[in-house]
């Protein structure tokens, strides 16, 4: 894949929004790959966590929108704990979810659409996380 870089790209709104929501400096990451190496869910992801950060550094919004990685991430925070540069990767994953969610009308799951029997049985936390992860 060919990407075109410009200052509008690498310092655009997308990068700023991700950094603002996560409170992380994306350029703090030096791409060692330790997060990807230890991620227990990486086998299900189409883009490795470290590559997610890399694409975010380069402002590659469209490619990230196609990725399932931050929906697979279950915020176990293994990456955050192990990152040698102190990057809270789980927070960046969350920020990417939020950036996507904040775009209107992209929900895949509506709480009102769930059958009442299932709602009665499901733990509340599962409903909340399902809403997060299956939306967008």
């Amino acid at each position, binding site marked *: 894949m060919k990407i*075109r*870089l410009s200052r509008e790209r690498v310092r655009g709104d997308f990068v700023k929004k991700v950094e603002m929501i996560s409170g992380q400096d994306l*350029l703090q990451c030096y791409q060692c790959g330790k997060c990807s190496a230890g991620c227990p869910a990486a086998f299900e992801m189409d883009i490795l966590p470290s*590559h997610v950060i*890399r694409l975010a550094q380069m402002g590659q919004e469209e490619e990230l929108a196609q990725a399932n990685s931050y929906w697979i991430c279950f915020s176990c925070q293994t990456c955050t704990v192990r990152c040698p540069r102190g990057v809270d990767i789980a927070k960046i994953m969350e920020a990417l979810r939020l950036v996507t969610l904040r775009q209107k009308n992209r929900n895949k799951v509506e709480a009102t659409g769930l059958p009442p029997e299932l709602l009665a049985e499901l733990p509340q936390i599962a409903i909340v996380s399902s809403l997060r992860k299956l939306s967008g």
Partner: protein
Amino acid sequence: MKPRIGVFVCHCGLNIAASVEVSEVVKAIKDYPGVVHAQDYIYMCSDPGQNLVRKAIREHNLTGLVMSNCSPSLHERTFRNLAKSEGLNPYLVEVANIREYCSWPHQGDKETATKKALTIIKATIERVKRNQALTPLVVPLQKRVLVLGGGVAGMQTALDIAEGGYPVTILEKQAYLGGRVRQLDHTFVTMEKAKDLAGEMIDRTLAQPNIEVLTTAQIEGISGYVGNFEVQIRRQSDWVDPEKCNGCEACIKACPVEVPSTFDRGLVMRKAIDWTPGARPGEKRVFLDHQACVRVTRQESCTACQEVCDQGAITYPEDEQITQMYGAIVVATGHDLYRKSALTEYATDPDVLDALQFERLLSEDGPTGGKVLRPSDGKEPKEVVFVQCAGSRDPDKHFPYCSKICCMYTCKEARRYKEKVPDGQAYVFFIDVRSTGKGYEEFVKESVQKERLLYLKGKVSKIARQGDKLLVLGGDTITGHRVEIEADLVVLAMATVPSPGAKELARLLNVNTDPYGFIQEAHPKLAPVETLTAGIYLAGTSQAPKDIPHAIYQASGAASKILSLFSRKELIHEPLVAHVDTEICAGCGYCHDNCAYQAVSVDPILKKAVVNEALCEGCGACATACPSGAIQVKNLDSKQVFDMISVVTKDYALRP
């Protein structure tokens, strides 16, 4: 006098004794002609071992020792010193190497090893019988140093030596001191102005009474050896008298010759007579560059500048010739950058700069007064791409080595660009970021975050002009994506190469260069500031690419080596040198042709070979070349060699 030789056979633990039947050797050698004492011991080099040797010298009044043990490179000195302290001339001691030459290669074959050990010892006995008692040579020492190059390395060496109390001459090719650092804007990691750093050193150098600075000067010839180099220096005389010049620029306007400015790396043109950096950073003066002037280049008698000068400041005196004796020489001739045009895929566009050109754009005393403006149209570039490893780490097309300094200066240049153009974006293409110095890694990471530098892992494949922009085709090997950037300016971190003329200088000084023209150190680890030619030392980037701190380390290292040399009253030289029998010598000069040290010459009047004992290393190349055997190495003459061969051929005769 009949020889009274003592033979000492060492077991070296089991190193020798496991393969050589030591007791048998001692028994067999005891009655060999000339031997009056033979003895073995487990470790002859140990204190009790040495005491045995001392005792034997005294008791048996020995006239020679054959130490049968390890290689002479290990313990020859030990036993020669021992002999000296017992009043026996040290050159009457020889080592019979029965370890490296015998017990080690013949492990498990005791019979062969024992026989061979005996032969080696007997041959050495024959050699010792003809050894002469020699006295080390005393060579006078000129305590004055010549430093070639007035950059930071050269100045540091000169300052250290001068502060130690010895006179130093700095020869600088350019018209000013400071070398490459004068061209730089800031220095990493401190982000100190290069001008201040160089300025402080230049001030100290000019104020140091023991230092003589010769600018626009070069070495022309050299003869002699450590402690006594006779050096011919050629100094271009100053054609503009700085005392009289009032800077009216009339001469500059009148001069018909225009050349690219070397100091500004060709970013602007200059007249042959024009402003040039002055003695100190920030100062400038009118200077006539001989290399550009038609009076020199075309032997014309142009006097255009002289005619318009109403101060009478311009005259054309001949170059100055100086001959001076020096005890030691330091090569600190610095480096250059590989030529951009060699990387054809990166184009020869005016907006593709090398790193030093970019330093000039950043510098306040540069052609743009420190404003970052691109050469093609003078606009401020908003997208700047830096390309590392341009020519370095490219064994197939360019240079296999890492230029060492580019990672750091690229980061610094990108950072300085952003400080000057805050709304611009800097991209850095890299293969690895090698930030291996104190505070270096922290500097890179801090710069990346502070100035939002985008580092992209991958080498740029092509840079092409596309209208107003330069299309940079690169890649990000981390994500596996190809990357395209429409850049306004590209800066190439060109490979670091030796200064022009380094190879010719090396040939003149009789020192080696590596395949790329950097001066070769005597040993990469243990003698990194010396060359293989005694008395010639190295400092700075003439030896290999290095940054300012490392250049300073090496410069001070070279200075301390020289101060240690100068702390002696005179030089002592091994007396194991070549000697000419003038009765036999026919003056054919074969010895001269074969000498690697230029130690033998033929006297033009007497037609006899003459050995300069101070230069001779006793290698014996002359002795093997001499058709009549007139030239011989002391204590290894042909009679000794024949005696030794006789022992061997007798012991190993095909037909007994």
